[in-house]
């Protein structure tokens, strides 16, 4: 038993690589410099974008129908939300123990899913203004869509900063386990029993 199964680990690694590539190439496209690599960088941006979107689609499918389905882990836990926020503000010593992810994590990861979808939509509008997203171009105008796409990049960066900080301080072990097969641990004891049964 491991906190993160192989498919989840692969999806996470792909997300990491794609988002890194997208951010780096995105900043180049935003403020290009010599040497001239615009064509190549944009090509990389498109490829990484497709990887991220396809990966999201497969991951969402897997969360519901995969062998180690884990959609339960991402269900928002509104009741525990306040306690978790208090925990981060040092107002209580007790973290919410409910499944793999705490209530704030669940919301954050769902937010990332939404963010990827929105980046995909605005990205398609920018790459193919006359294509399927033409209605959006007509509605908002390219200038606005470009600004939104760029702002969302900063939302990604903000997420990554908080994500990294909390992983390193709150659960460094989970970081290791997200990339390499972890040791036998009893981290899963807090898991929802139904999910645990499904997994077995």
């Amino acid at each position: 038993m491991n906190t993160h199964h192989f498919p989840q680990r692969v999806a996470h690694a792909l997300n990491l690589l794609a988002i890194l590539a997208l951010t780096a190439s995105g900043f180049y496209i935003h403020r290009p410099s010599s040497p001239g690599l615009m064509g190549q960088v944009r090509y990389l941006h498109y490829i990484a974008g497709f990887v991220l979107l396809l990966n999201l689609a497969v991951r969402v499918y897997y969360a519901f129908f995969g062998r180690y389905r884990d959609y339960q882990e991402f269900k928002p836990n509104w009741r525990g939300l306040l306690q978790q926020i208090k925990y981060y503000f040092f107002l209580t010593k007790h973290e919410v123990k409910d499944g793999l992810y705490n209530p704030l994590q669940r919301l954050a990861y769902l937010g990332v899913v939404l963010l990827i979808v929105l980046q995909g939509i605005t990205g398609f509008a920018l790459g193919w203004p006359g294509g399927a997203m033409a209605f959006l171009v007509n509605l908002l105008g390219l200038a606005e869509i470009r600004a939104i796409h760029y702002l969302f990049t900063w939302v990604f960066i903000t997420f990554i900063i908080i994500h990294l900080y909390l992983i390193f301080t709150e659960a460094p072990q989970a970081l290791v386990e997200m990339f390499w097969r972890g040791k036998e641990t009893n981290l899963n004891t807090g898991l929802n029993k139904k999910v645990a049964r499904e997994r077995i």
Partner: protein
Amino acid sequence: MDFQSRLEARGLSRRDFIKLIGTVTAALQLPAIYQPRIAQAVENAANKPAVIWLEGQDCTGCTESILSSFNPGPTEIVLDLLSIRYHETIMAGAGETAESWLAENIKQGGYLLVVEGSIPTADDRFLTIGGRPFRQILQEAAANAAAVVPIGACACYGGIPAAGPTEAKGVQDIISGKPIINLPGCPVKPNWLLGTILHYLVFNQVPELDSNKRPLAYFGGLLHDNCPRRGHFEKGEFLTDWNDPAQKDFCLLLRGCKGPKTYTDCAQSWWNDGVNFCINASSPCAGCTQPEFYAAGLSDNRAGLAPLYVRTDTMSLPGIGGVNPETAGKVMAGASVAGAGIHLVGNIATGRLKQEKAEEGRRDK
């Protein structure tokens, strides 16, 4: 006088006339098969299409643009192609005579109403003609018009006057219930206006329009996609120093070019009978065919395309107004770094980190 002899009286042979029609057909992006039909429409318009031309808050630049047309020339436009009933800049009449002539023509109806310049909405006193508010004149003239053709950025979307205190608006914000064909640009290109008028004469209907009410034939494509400097964009060669001769043909993106956000056919059909256009003359595109043209973005509710020589990145948020995503993003990311730092101090102060380590130690055992 029949049509042929009228052409000859103007020094135009039949051949010249057919050539002119060929040019116009091509400008309309219609196949050559339409050429006889267009020629027929123009000949039928020997009872020439009546045009009433109103000027609001404008600089007369669009009039200048039309009168600088080469092919057809200004005399053909004014005397042969159209029957311009009222045009403050070029009409011979003035004062009461001109105004009563306008009223008479409005009564007759069925004309094309060309509007140049924006309409002040803050106070009608900002613009009156013969003591009457321009807005009222426009509404009366539009009521009996077959179609309204606002020309230039001002008449279409408010344009440059919209940055002033008169709360200038475009025709589409004042007039409803009439077909409106927006022909923006600063100024409008002559072939856009003549082509649109001819299209209306031939088909008797409004051409296909986009969501900003611009004819798709002229405003259907992005300037960036047909830019002569596109190769330099792809190669990453950007002009940064105006004084460096080696960079003179480079992409103008970093110098504020709005080409990637602007829908127009400027790159395909150049000004002054194909002599030149902005980007080819080393000026970045100002985005003058866009509704956002000249809007600063930070004070206006639209994502702006001004100023000209600066890359504009402002976006508009409902209720907040203009926001620079670069600033917003850096503040957001900076706040998260600061928050993490403060939290880390808290973590150490409360001994939470040590606790975690101890727990891990237990786990490892």
